């Protein structure tokens, strides 16, 4: 059924109203290429044993973080998951320090103590990847609470997956956010059942008995809707509405985006076949850009090359960075001197 939807979907993309101007289109394209290039490069690094542990992959979902973060300012906060790289890059995190952190180096954002699961960069409002499924969501309510009390127009975006959506903490936080009318947008990235089956995640009992997580929004008294996560233009449009709603004090929204995890949810777990990659957000965007004659071959190559150079520079920085001092094992338990 999803496969049929796909063709219907692509037709409708091409016919849909254009919501982006050309420059914005190319900007989003660049961010998506950056995320893809980064993860592809880092996967190689991981296989070479230069990253001490496997890291969560976002490949295939680039459209979501990119379309959402296009509306966020530096001071707005996001809370992420155990597959945070796409969210972080789209929010504007420094690639050198990100890569150093993934390699466990002293020059990483968190002195090599976080790894991919726990990266924090307050500078860009990246307030937490999280190793516990769904656990960043209650904390996001706190960021939004701060924004509401300070009344300075900042908003919070809280990412989670369809599996996480069953966590009690997320259910509680949806209710809390509605009760307190918090300036927050909840983003559920729902990965396709097709890919879950490929991963061997097909379970005897399902994780969810509903197709769309967003229908739960009604149960908490907030708007909710489901969209194609592989169409960055659509993500950009609906995320913009929800973020503006939050920013203007009208309260929380639950947005759900259907996505495909190409590489599985952990690096190295899956090699997807070409035929199983029907909903690549970059392919869809390139297709649109070409049809609308926005993306020319030389521009495309230029963007890809520039992003590759940026990523390679980050890798070089990380690999040449020192290990943390052994004393760092004991510091930062309470912050400051203890």
């Amino acid at each position, binding site marked *: 059924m999803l496969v049929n939807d796909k063709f219907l979907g692509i037709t409708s993309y091409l016919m849909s109203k254009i919501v982006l101007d050309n420059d914005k289109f190319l900007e989003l394209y660049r961010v998506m290429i950056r995320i893809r290039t980064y993860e592809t490069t880092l996967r190689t690094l991981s296989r070479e044993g230069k990253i001490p542990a496997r890291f969560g992959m976002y490949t295939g979902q680039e459209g979501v973080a990119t379309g959402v973060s296009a509306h966020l300012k530096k001071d707005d*906060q996001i*809370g992420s998951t155990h597959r945070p790289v796409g969210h972080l890059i789209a929010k504007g995190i420094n690639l050198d320090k990100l890569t150093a952190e993934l390699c466990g180096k002293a020059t*990483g*954002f*968190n*002195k*090599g*103590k*976080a790894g991919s699961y*726990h990266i*924090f*960069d*307050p500078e860009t409002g990246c*307030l*937490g990847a*999280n*190793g*516990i499924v769904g*656990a960043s*969501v*209650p*904390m*996001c*309510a*706190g*960021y*939004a*609470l*701060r*924004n*509401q*009390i300070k009344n300075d127009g900042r908003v919070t975006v809280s990412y989670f997956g369809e599996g996480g959506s069953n966590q*009690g*903490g997320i259910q*509680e*936080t949806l*209710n*809390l956010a509605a*009760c*307190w009318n918090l300036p927050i947008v909840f983003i559920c990235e729902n990965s396709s059942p097709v890919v879950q089956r490929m991963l061997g995640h097909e379970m005897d009992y399902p994780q969810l008995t509903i197709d769309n997580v967003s229908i739960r929004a009604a149960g908490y008294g907030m708007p909710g809707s489901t969209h194609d996560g592989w169409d960055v233009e659509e993500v950009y449009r609906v995320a913009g509405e929800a973020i503006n709603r939050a920013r203007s004090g009208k309260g929380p929204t639950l947005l759900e985006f259907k996505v495909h995890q190409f590489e599985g949810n952990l690096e190295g777990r899956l090699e997807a076949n070409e035929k199983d990659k029907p909903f690549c957000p970059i392919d869809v965007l390139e297709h649109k850009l070409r049809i609308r004659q926005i993306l020319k071959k030389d521009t495309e190559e230029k963007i890809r090359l520039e992003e590759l150079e940026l990523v390679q520079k980050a890798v070089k920085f990380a690999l040449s960075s020192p290990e943390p001092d052994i004393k*760092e094992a004991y*510091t*930062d*338990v*309470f*912050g*400051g001197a*203890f």
Partner: protein
Amino acid sequence: MPERIITMSEALNEAMFNEMKKNSDIILLGENVSSSFRGPTKGLKDAFGRERVRDAPISETSFIGAGIGAAITGLRPIVELMLVDFGLVAMDQILNQMGKTTYMSGGAVKIPITLRAVIGAGTSSGATHSESLYSLFAHMPGIKVVLPSTPYDAKGLLTSSIRENCPKVFLEHRLLYNVKGNVPKEEYTIPLGVANTCNEGNDVTIVASGLMLHESLKAAEKIKNKVSVEVIDPRTIYPLDEETILKSLQKTGRLIVVDEDYRYCGFSAEIAALAAEKAFKQLKGPIYRLATPNTPFPFNPRLERELLPNAEKIEKLIQKVIGE
């Protein structure tokens, strides 16, 4: 200075009121914190408004998590747990997120949150409304655990807790709320990690916190003509003022730990280990622990009393220790 006698509940209220008045980043979250019927938070909503003194739905994970998030972004939340036992439904937020995030972030974020929780047995409230659980929090990294036993300490320790830039679990024994004592009107702080020697003595050292401090003092008073008992209140379970305890042991050579929390792998075991590791040569006999056995609290008052340490049991144990 004339004495000013108020309850512990009033002392806690005063600490929060003073700090909230000075610093608009301090907020208070919890179930029914706006209520005018509950001593420690009484009047705070009227003084500071519903934005800052904010009722939360009965969903501890979400409002404790919100407190952590607010702390990460620069506010200084006081989050109230109606009973510490209810915190058990929010252990991921408390132990994983609150306790570990500063370390995991390499110090990039600080979490100046004070998680206040009511503790304590002795009111026939049964197994899920009677616990102390300070050993559990103190076992995990990144959390300071505070347990005042007098109105004076309550005000000074809560003021310090609100001002410190790290996560604190601040425990208030329900049977101590109405205990009265001298509390100066002006602001003062008591640093976290400094014990209080409440009764000086030479024959045996008792380490006891919260309600158990009062039971130990009663026992010491009763037996004072026969045995000279030194009673130490650590005031914070973590960090622990080891020095005060070790100094006392140099003098007495005998140790009793009285602990309302569960005995196994608990605070009493930690104090015993401290004495064994760092005061072994001064010890004249075995270390004794009087703690709640690893049994859920029963509803029946007689059964509950059977499990809990009290002044009578402490007195008997002192006699035994001295007789050896």
